[in-house]
């Protein structure tokens, strides 16, 4: 079994830098992290300096994701030895218990952290994650709402809450969370596009118009967001086809839909160039656009 460095012809420094990149950009490519991290730890630990501790943490979490309890355990031992009273390490021990589905033990650990330090957000969030893992959505929602009353600026929490509401089909509340996120992150095209999807799902003419506006906004922020482009196309088409709209609104929306359709066509034609394998998807889109044009006119 060849090593990562042999397989990919990379140096240990490159492996270390890759791990840092994945850490900073919050990637959850756990199998890769385990492959690269395990080799780095086993072969090059002495060269890593103080970086090794954060690498142990990163690899441990990835190992839990991949059911590699052996690796997670050894990383945890190293961290416990170096940082014997650390809450951060205690939280990692809790995560390991979660991975083993020992939720009661994990909760006890997190509660002890919170007794020591009631402002420890990481421990609170782990407790909420446990509720989620156990399928206790309404409790998770309740706890998360309480958490956000105290920590109103926590973006990750707002997004988690919006996901929970979407799963529970509580679209109005999901929209509220996304509105918070859009306010604090006005340049994030993904929040705009998700908000538009929620509005579209809620349905009704007013929501469709809002959806169209936010799909358009998402496109302004990122003109390659295909979901936003399709969303714009579909919401404009539905508005144009509605018997309740004025002639002017219908005309405007026919225009928006036509514009979106031409952009979609163009994008698919560029994508289809030289690639035989996606001919099917290209053909399907073309026919869909054609048939929807007929229903609109």
């Amino acid at each position, binding site marked *: 079994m060849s090593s990562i460095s042999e397989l990919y012809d990379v140096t240990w420094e490159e492996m270390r830098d890759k791990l840092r990149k994945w850490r900073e950009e919050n990637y959850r490519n756990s199998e890769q992290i385990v492959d690269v991290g395990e080799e780095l730890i086993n072969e090059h630990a002495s060269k890593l300096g103080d970086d090794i501790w954060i690498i142990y943490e990163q690899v441990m979490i990835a190992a839990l994701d991949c059911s590699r309890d052996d690796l997670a355990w050894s990383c945890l031992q190293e961290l416990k030895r170096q940082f014997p009273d650390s809450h951060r390490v205690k939280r990692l021990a809790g995560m390991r218990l979660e991975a083993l589905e020992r939720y009661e033990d994990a909760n006890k650990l997190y509660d002890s952290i919170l007794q020591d330090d009631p402002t420890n957000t990481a421990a609170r969030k782990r407790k909420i994650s446990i509720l989620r*893992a156990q*399928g206790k959505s309404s409790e998770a929602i309740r706890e998360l709402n309480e958490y956000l009353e105290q920590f109103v600026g926590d973006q990750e929490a707002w997004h988690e809450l919006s996901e929970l509401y*979407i*799963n529970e*089909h509580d679209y109005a509340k999901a929209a509220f969370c996304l509105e918070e996120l859009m306010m604090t992150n006005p340049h994030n095209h993904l929040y705009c596009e*998700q908000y*538009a*999807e*929620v509005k*579209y*799902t809620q*349905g009704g003419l007013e929501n469709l118009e809002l*959806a169209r506006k936010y799909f358009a906004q998402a496109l302004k922020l990122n003109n390659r967001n*295909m*979901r936003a482009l*399709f*969303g714009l196309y*579909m*919401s404009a088409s539905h508005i144009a086809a509605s018997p309740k709209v004025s002639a002017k609104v219908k005309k405007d929306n026919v225009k928006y839909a036509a514009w979106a359709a031409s952009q979609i066509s163009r*994008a*698919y034609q560029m*994508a289809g160039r030289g*690639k035989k*394998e*996606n001919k*099917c*998807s290209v*053909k*399907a*889109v073309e*026919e*869909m656009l054609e*048939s929807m044009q007929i229903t609109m006119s």
Partner: protein
Amino acid sequence: MLCHTLVGKHTKMSEVELSCLAYAKMYLHASQFPRCSVNGLLLSSSPAGGTICITDCVPLLHSHLSLAPITQLALTQVDVWCSQTQQRIVGYYQANACVSDSSPTPCALKIAEKIFEQCNNAVLLMIDGEKMFPGCRAPPIVMYERKDARWALKDKHTIMLRQWEETCSIVNQLFSSGDQALLVDFDSHLDDITKDWTNQKLNAKIMELVSPANGNV
């Protein structure tokens, strides 16, 4: 006596056959996104009537399953593709993120209803995550069919997976060769439209592995 014969006629269960190709891709889809709920459509290239043969599937989403726009878009596109390729949408599958709960969600029931409107022996298939481990003897699936205006559990004996052992072995081969990474679902296609949600490449690989099992050289 007459009543007895009539009852006998009306209680014939409709059988469902699940092909290796459809099963393999569903399994791969659920495995590719272990922390998400995933869903997809079940297709048939056989004519309507009699046994339902699920010959293929299209993996759809791994995020926001209950939001409408992308689901509607995917359904429309798959519809179009089916008419281009003489296939029909005959069912829907879903694997829940929460492994311990394999019951159909409201969203699953809604989409299955839509499919039922066009196909009166449509099936709803839930993947049972708890049974997805190497060496598991039983297929990790639970099927529902429309009966008396609700979705009822289908009798396990009416579900046929031909050559189950070979199917398992094929799935294992896909994982060991790394080909399981070839699977593209509709969500991934929208992230990069050069990716093919009809999975022609993966289909070819799977069919290559299937042929020896059938004795076709």
